[in-house]
């Protein structure tokens, strides 16, 4: 093989580049050398596997090539089960290598503050351009006065229920108090149509139900100072005591072993009458009307409605799930990653993705509440109001690192699970109070 020295290499590569610029393919062929271009920027984006598969397809099939065309950035999207994201963050941070951007759920960004790049410039501009962020999105994505992530969207749950099954037992509307729901659930469970609710270790559905349950009875994790643990109260004990008959009389006991997809399967198979969930059950039923049908042979989606979780003596709440794109500080593609996040959150690009969600998520900025998508299907409209009616984990304190730690250890969920499995309510609350005290101390 002929030896090519440095001088000759420069000459040849220069000729290739010049030929490409001047003469296109003919020039390249004439020079006999491939053109030498600067190395392209790459961005690796890790995110969850969406409960709306169409959105994942859109990202892979349209957004990736558009990104290449618009920014010259080769975008690599990796999708994993949401329960595995935290493990990926830990290994990436500790090894100092991995995805450039990671889509975090809930208040997880607060666990990784020291490993995240400051994206205040990007977030501030996007917020200003799009009507401002919802407070819950800002709360999880800021720390110490700076943005540690760029809010992406907000998920959340409403109760998906079978309209006709509730009508059959005399409820034209979904029960608006826990007492009424328990009474309705008791009748439905006797008909082998229980209420389905996860009470297990999974990222979305279990906290999505049991935190609002705690708040609606007047319980809270900490005082407003964010330090004083206040879980062990008569309100919390009452919430645990009331959870027992609700679970026993109205709920599907299988929920103790459910993950976030189990209630979807159970609902779509006609095994449960109601479950707190995102719009994914309805969207899937609507997508496959021939597959998911009622016992009378009608498309099931026509028999599904959404309602807020009932109220208790402490009020009526939900737990919205903010999604945040974290730009990892170890990334060597900071500029490209920021460029990409700015671009993908820009209205024309984000709108494509937002439309594909069909109402499964709400935009992180308020302008998206006025998007025409909300006028397309009245069954999905109630999801639009979730950000204004919710609380975040760690209430009455801020959703900081300690609240994220408490959530990832499933302390509130396990408090109810322990009681359901036979631990005395007072002991279950004391155990949870002790665990929270260790975290907040």
């Amino acid at each position, binding site marked *: 093989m002929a030896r090519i020295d440095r001088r000759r290499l420069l000459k040849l590569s220069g000729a290739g580049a010049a030929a490409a610029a001047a003469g296109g393919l003919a020039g390249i062929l004439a020079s006999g050398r491939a053109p030498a271009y600067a190395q392209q920027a790459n961005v690796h984006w890790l995110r969850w596997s969406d409960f709306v598969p169409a959105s994942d397809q859109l990202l892979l099939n349209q957004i990736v090539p558009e990104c290449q065309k618009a920014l010259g950035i080769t975008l690599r999207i990796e999708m994993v089960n949401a329960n595995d994201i935290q493990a990926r963050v*830990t290994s990436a941070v500790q090894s100092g290598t991995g995805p450039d951007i990671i889509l975090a759920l809930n208040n997880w960004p607060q666990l990784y503050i*020291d490993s995240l790049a400051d994206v205040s410039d990007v977030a501030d501009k996007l917020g200003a351009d799009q009507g401002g962020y919802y407070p819950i999105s800002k709360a999880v994505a800021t720390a110490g006065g700076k943005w540690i992530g760029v809010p992406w969207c907000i998920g959340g749950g409403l109760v998906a229920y079978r309209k006709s099954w509730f009508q059959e037992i005399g409820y034209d509307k979904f029960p608006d108090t826990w007492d009424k729901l328990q009474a309705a659930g008791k009748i439905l469970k006797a008909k082998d149509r229980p209420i389905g609710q996860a009470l297990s270790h999974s990222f979305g559905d279990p906290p999505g139900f049991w935190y609002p349950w705690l708040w609606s009875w007047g319980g809270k994790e900490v005082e407003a100072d964010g330090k004083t643990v206040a879980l062990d109260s008569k309100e919390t004990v009452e919430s645990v005591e009331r959870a027992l008959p609700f679970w026993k009389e109205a709920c599907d006991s299988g929920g*103790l072993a459910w993950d976030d997809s189990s209630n979807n399967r159970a609902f779509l198979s006609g095994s449960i009458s109601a479950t707190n969930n995102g719009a994914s059950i309805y969207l899937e039923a609507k997508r496959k009307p021939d597959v998911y049908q009622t016992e009378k042979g009608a498309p099931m989606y026509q028999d599904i409605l959404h309602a807020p979780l009932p109220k208790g003596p402490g009020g009526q709440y939900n737990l919205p799930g903010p999604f945040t794109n974290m730009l990892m500080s170890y990334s060597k593609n900071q500029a490209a990653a920021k460029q990409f996040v700015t671009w993908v959150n820009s209205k024309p690009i984000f709108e494509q993705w937002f439309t594909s969600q069909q109402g499964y998520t709400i935009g992180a900025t308020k302008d998206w509440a006025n998007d025409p998508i909300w006028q397309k299907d009245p069954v999905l409209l109630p999801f639009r109001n979730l950000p204004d009616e919710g609380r975040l984990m760690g209430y009455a304190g801020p959703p900081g690192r300690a609240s994220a730690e408490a959530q990832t250890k499933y302390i509130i969920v396990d408090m109810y699970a322990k009681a359901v499995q036979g631990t005395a309510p007072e002991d279950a609350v004391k155990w949870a109070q002790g665990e929270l005290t260790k975290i907040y101390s």
Partner: protein
Amino acid sequence: MTFTTVAAPSSYVGTPRRGPVTRLLEDERWLALLLLLPTVVLLGLFIAYPFVKGIMLSVTDTRVGVPGHFVGLKNFEDVWNDSIFRVAVWNTCLYTVVTTVFKLALGLWLAVLLNRNFRGKTLTRAFILLPFIIPTVLSTLAWKWMFDPTFSVINWVLFHVGIIDSRINWLGEPGLAMISVIIVNVWRGVPFYAITLLAGLQTISPELHEAAAIDGARAWQRFRHVTWPLLLPVTLVVVLFSVIQTFADFQLVYVLTGGGPANATQLFATYAYQIGIGTGLLSQGATISLAVFPVLLLVVIVQLLYIRKVETH
């Protein structure tokens, strides 16, 4: 083929002078060192370094992305007072003891059966290994479907046979969840016992059995006084490996129950993972992992001493 020239025998030339490397390698001590080097490097990289790193992490308050400070034995004290850790200790011990007993009994039984001559013996032996060959995560996912609270095929069969009239909540009830993970572990582990013990059985000379039979020993007596003593060293090694693997089991429980419900099936490894990797409390996760070490060390020492004693006799 023809030869045009024939090389003339060259006159004797003395062996070329050996270089310093050759001379060094002719020394057995240096050669042994050189041959051991790759193993030492591998053990150092993949065993010693993580172990030392784990110890260093356990005496700090390191969190993910946040370098820690030295905190002495505080993490060990915290872990000792952690109620979930105590549950994990109990669960791990129960899980290991019960599965080991069942795997040994069933594996031995299977090995004795497979040691007989019958048609399709080779094929049967190959099939027996299937649970062990399939990747744990895959087979456990299949089991997860079989235990599914709503769609369990086991419940479906039991219901249609008329054994149950309401479904069994396999993974939702604490006791049943532990039984479920034990069943899957035994299912997966029996082939390892069976094949290894079968190899041990095949080294036992048939003449010993024939001699015992001529002396009037019945089947059980032949097993008790001929087979078992000769099989004991192999059995102890198999049990040793199995105990170590089961004690540190992760994949099976992680996939099947995630440690739930409410930590009812939490083991050392799953809890260490949840705290260290999930929550990002690296030092506490390392502490939980290290807590396994003294127990396993004790098991290994006792068993190795026993094996030496058996072999000496």
